[in-house]
């Protein structure tokens, strides 16, 4: 249990280890598993041979290289040390690592697309996205089809680099997707992580951010639209350990099925050295049906008195009758008014997706889930 030596005793400190055996098989009583549907995740709690039941498509603009490397590559493990058994098993057993390198100072006008189209089967995945100094890029990880996946994604954002990672979970109904997205931000780096959870039976993402140099900023956005039988869980951890950095979190969920479930855990830690930190996190959940359940647990731990600002807010509610009344009183039918409200609810997340085709595709998917396309929407996208 070597990793235990790193523990400081703070509740926000995470136990991390590269050895899967350091993590017991979850029972559901653990804090980090108590919200999750373990029955569906159980196949991921034991090692397996990855069936690689994926078709992998890429779009790589100039300035980007993609290579397949081994687990022993020097960059593997630099941003991520597993924090749970599924992540540790994936890291220890994955066959190949996808290394995406964005050249220093490259300014990409087109997005990098990494599209995984799954077929039923058990899979491990491991990606390292190395955004070198002063580069600027958007990477879209697009997940489609059906598969059971345990994946680790490491993101290295170099000095002064600006990286946006959009992870779209547009799975078919039966998919199970558990992934850790760990980013390490160098000096003055800017990182935007956007998680879009639409499909799949279970999607459990752990976006984490650590800071390796001052002046870095992270924005973490999330959109979850959980329908009947869907479980969408987002477990964030932002670890401020150096001065003058910022983090900004906005996660929004809409639940529209009686058995819909979303979980949002927002852990932010500001260590003693992280003076002049700015952090804010917001979670809003909109319940459209009676049986749906949204859990929201913000957790802000501040260990220095010299922060610039810190706050969090969380609210879960139903449709605002007054908003619907107002829209309807202008002739807008109720179902359309509801769509407008939901679109508006998601707007401050989805508007951060600046890839037009992707933005439009996601809005179309959301509109279709809501049963139509609002009139007048075409000029507002």
């Amino acid at each position: 249990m070597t990793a235990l030596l790193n523990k400081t005793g703070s509740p926000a400190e995470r136990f991390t280890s590269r050895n899967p055996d350091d993590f017991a098989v979850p029972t559901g009583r653990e804090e980090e598993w108590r919200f999750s549907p373990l029955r569906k995740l159980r196949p991921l709690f034991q090692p397996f041979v990855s069936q690689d039941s994926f078709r992998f498509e890429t779009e790589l603009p100039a300035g980007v290289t993609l290579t397949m490397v081994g687990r022993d590559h020097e960059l593997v493990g630099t941003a991520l040390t597993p924090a749970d058994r599924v992540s540790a098993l994936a890291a220890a057993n994955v066959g190949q690592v996808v290394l995406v390198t964005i050249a220093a100072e490259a300014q990409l006008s087109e997005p990098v697309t990494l599209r995984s189209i799954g077929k039923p089967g058990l899979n491990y995945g491991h990606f390292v996205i190395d955004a070198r100094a002063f580069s600027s890029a958007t990477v879209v990880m697009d997940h489609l089809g059906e598969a059971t996946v345990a994946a680790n994604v490491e993101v290295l954002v170099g000095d002064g680099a600006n990286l946006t990672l959009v992870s779209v979970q547009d799975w078919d109904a039966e998919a199970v997707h558990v992934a850790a997205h760990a980013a390490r931000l160098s000096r003055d780096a800017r990182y935007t992580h956007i998680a879009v959870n639409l499909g799949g039976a279970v999607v459990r993402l752990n976006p984490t951010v650590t800071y390796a140099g001052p002046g870095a900023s992270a924005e973490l956005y999330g959109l979850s639209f959980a329908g009947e039988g869907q479980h969408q869980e987002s477990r964030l951890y932002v670890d401020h350990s150096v001065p003058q950095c910022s983090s900004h979190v906005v996660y929004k969920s809409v639940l529209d099925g009686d058995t819909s479930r979303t979980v949002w855990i927002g852990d932010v830690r500001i260590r003693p050295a992280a003076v002049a930190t700015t952090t804010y996190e917001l979670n809003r959940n909109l319940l459209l049906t009676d049986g749906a359940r949204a859990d929201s647990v913000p957790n802000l731990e501040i260990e220095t008195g010299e922060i610039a600002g810190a706050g969090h807010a969380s609210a879960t509610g139903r449709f605002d009758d007054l908003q619907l009344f107002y829209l309807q009183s202008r002739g807008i039918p109720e179902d359309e008014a509801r769509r407008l409200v939901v679109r508006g609810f998601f707007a401050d997340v989805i508007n951060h997706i600046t890839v037009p085709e992707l933005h439009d595709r996601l809005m179309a998917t959301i509109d279709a889930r809501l049963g139509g396309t609002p009139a007048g929407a075409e000029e507002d996208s």
Partner: protein
Amino acid sequence: MSKLEIRDLHVAVDDTPILKGVDLTVESGQTHAIMGPNGSGKSTLAYSIAGHPKYTVTSGQVLLDGQNVLEMAVDERARAGLFLAMQYPVEVPGVSVSNFLRTAATAVRGEAPKLRTWVKEVNTAMTELEMDKAFAERNVNEGFSGGEKKRHEILQMALLKPKIAILDETDSGLDVDALRVVSEGVNRVRETGIGTLLITHYTRILRYIKPDFVHVFFDGRIVESGGAELANELEAHGYARYGANEPAAVQ
């Protein structure tokens, strides 16, 4: 010609009777002012006609050109030609004014307005209300000042072209300049021949919007009706003779 008929309307909120038998008919081309002290039920009348879920009609009728308004859903009432300019317009986060206006116009007109003429129409209406173009990109009522909210209400009225418009305390919270701009906006729509029901506590707005009829509202019903001269009387004496020690003129 359109006609809004309110017949012996009784309305309750949470089992508490608020309106106790309102009778009023508003026809195209007419402007009726309803004046009354705080708590007399003026706003309840406005919201009840629009179909606000908080208000329960316990008896009586509301007819628009003979059609039973009370059986209509809120949006159906608007599409039938009723418009309520609200005292407290509601914020709708993430929904831009331009998207909202176009969606509403599409619903009320039954088809999407042609984009080119629509943009011109909106720009003209906004210019008349002395609204900046950037306004269209803001979220509906979010962070609007009191004056902006009221201009936005009247902008909607101008674009949706109702048969009968109900203006609920449209003058509240407006400075003199904004009151003039908003009143002129209302007058431009009135000149198209619609019927107007203007609800107000103060006589101030009646200097800009001249009513044909003035009704005094008290304790959930109309207690006196007359012409514009009734407003002058209220201006001078307030609501004292109806049992409420409140002025009707701005002090």
